[in-house]
């Protein structure tokens, strides 16, 4: 008994793929360009291309297809523009018990960190934030970007090192 392989052309399969990968892809592009709207457009365009090519892309390759297409779309779009990244302001969850001084100091630190992240190279930033914010493992990131796990580790290491240098003004 062999059930026929699921096709990307089936609407439920497509919707499932979207729910699984849309956020990661959107965030990944966002870490590169810093514009959430543009990131979402690129992500949606990648899914549209997946749908239009659903007969050629088997389900197992759909994720790789989406990563590849979204990255290429990003490269095509931002060739001519450099985006200065701006990250979310400090969220104040369970911070109310801290002293005002501490909060001020923390706020300064967060702004520094924010700027430091913006100053990372694009290659460092996408790896670092996919791991820290999207909680992607090194393996997953390596697969997403089509690089080795060793390269991911190196970028992580260098990213963190660079953040400290920038913040410490070394």
């Amino acid at each position, binding site marked *: 008994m062999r059930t026929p392989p699921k096709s990307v052309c089936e609407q439920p399969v497509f*919707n499932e793929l*979207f*729910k699984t990968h*849309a*956020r990661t892809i*959107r*965030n990944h592009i*966002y*870490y590169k360009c810093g514009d*959430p709207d543009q990131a*979402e457009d690129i*992500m*949606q365009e990648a*899914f*549209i291309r997946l*749908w239009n090519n659903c007969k050629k892309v088997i389900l197992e390759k759909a994720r790789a297809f989406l990563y590849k297409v979204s990255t290429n779309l990003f490269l095509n779009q931002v060739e001519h523009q450099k985006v200065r990244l701006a*990250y*979310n302001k*400090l*969220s104040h*969850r369970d911070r109310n018990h801290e002293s005002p001084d501490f909060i001020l100091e*923390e706020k300064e*630190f*967060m702004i520094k*960190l*924010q700027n430091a*992240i913006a100053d990372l190279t694009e290659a460092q930033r996408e790896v670092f*934030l996919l*791991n*820290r*914010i*999207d909680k992607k*493992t*090194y393996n997953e990131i390596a697969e997403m970007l089509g690089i080795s796990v060793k390269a*991911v*580790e*190196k970028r*992580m*290491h*260098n990213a*963190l*090192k660079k*953040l*400290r240098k920038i*913040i*410490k003004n070394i």
Partner: protein
Amino acid sequence: MTEDKDPYLAKWLNNDLTPQALEQFEKSEEFDDYDKIVKGLEYFEAPSFNEEASLMETLQKLQQPQKKGKIIRLKPFIYAISAAASILIIMGLFFNKVTHTADQGTQLALILPDDSRVDLNAGSSITYHRFFWSGNRVVTLDGEGLFSVKTGENFIVATDSGTIEVLGTVFNVKSRTSVFEVTCYEGKVRVGTNSDEQKIIQKGEAVSLKNGSLYKTQVSESEPLWKKGESLFISTPLKEVLDELERQYNITFNRIAINENKLFSGGFLHNNLDIALESVLVPMNLEYIVNGTNVKLSDK
């Protein structure tokens, strides 16, 4: 330790450091800085993202035609067909023919492109070229028709049995299956058969084809009898008379039980079927039963 070969920060972030390495790292002066950075990072979030809404938007975009310029492919096959069709149309203009048919039970009066007049008897048709008419006045006739030809270049009536050439005249051509008859009411016509026999007839003369040759006869009428709504036959096989009846009244005879070769002399009118049937069938000693448009014949 060299950083290139041992990205210890990455391993620390991934909780991959050996206990000894971790202990050593935690004692280092940078540890607090790194720890603070990593903890501070926890307060960062990617901008909010609504999966459901984004999926709906994507599906909507899928419904719409793609914004990008559509690639319109050249379609050589379709162009080839178009070109072929154009050539066919042009050829058609040259060779296009018009056919007019007078159905069974009707007569038809036509004006040809040169203002010549043709009256078609029932069950007859003519065909002529739609274009280049003036230099090529050829009319193909199947059946019987009265022609009033305008003076001009040669006017030719082609039939299965022969051709009639004229220079402006009035004449009747009868070209049925077994009959070929030309009657001239005005002017002069030349009648040629398929076996190259030719006869010129003048006003008041007629020729008919019998056993492959033309025989000239005299006529006194100024127009054919069918134009007056009559048919007249002299020693004509019954088959032809019945054929004419069928044409004039759009009826069908069932002739299985009779001998069609008997000769008939007489006529019938075109305006009353009962009288017409009576005037032909009673003298020939035939019984008939009318059923709609079917007439069954039998010997008495």
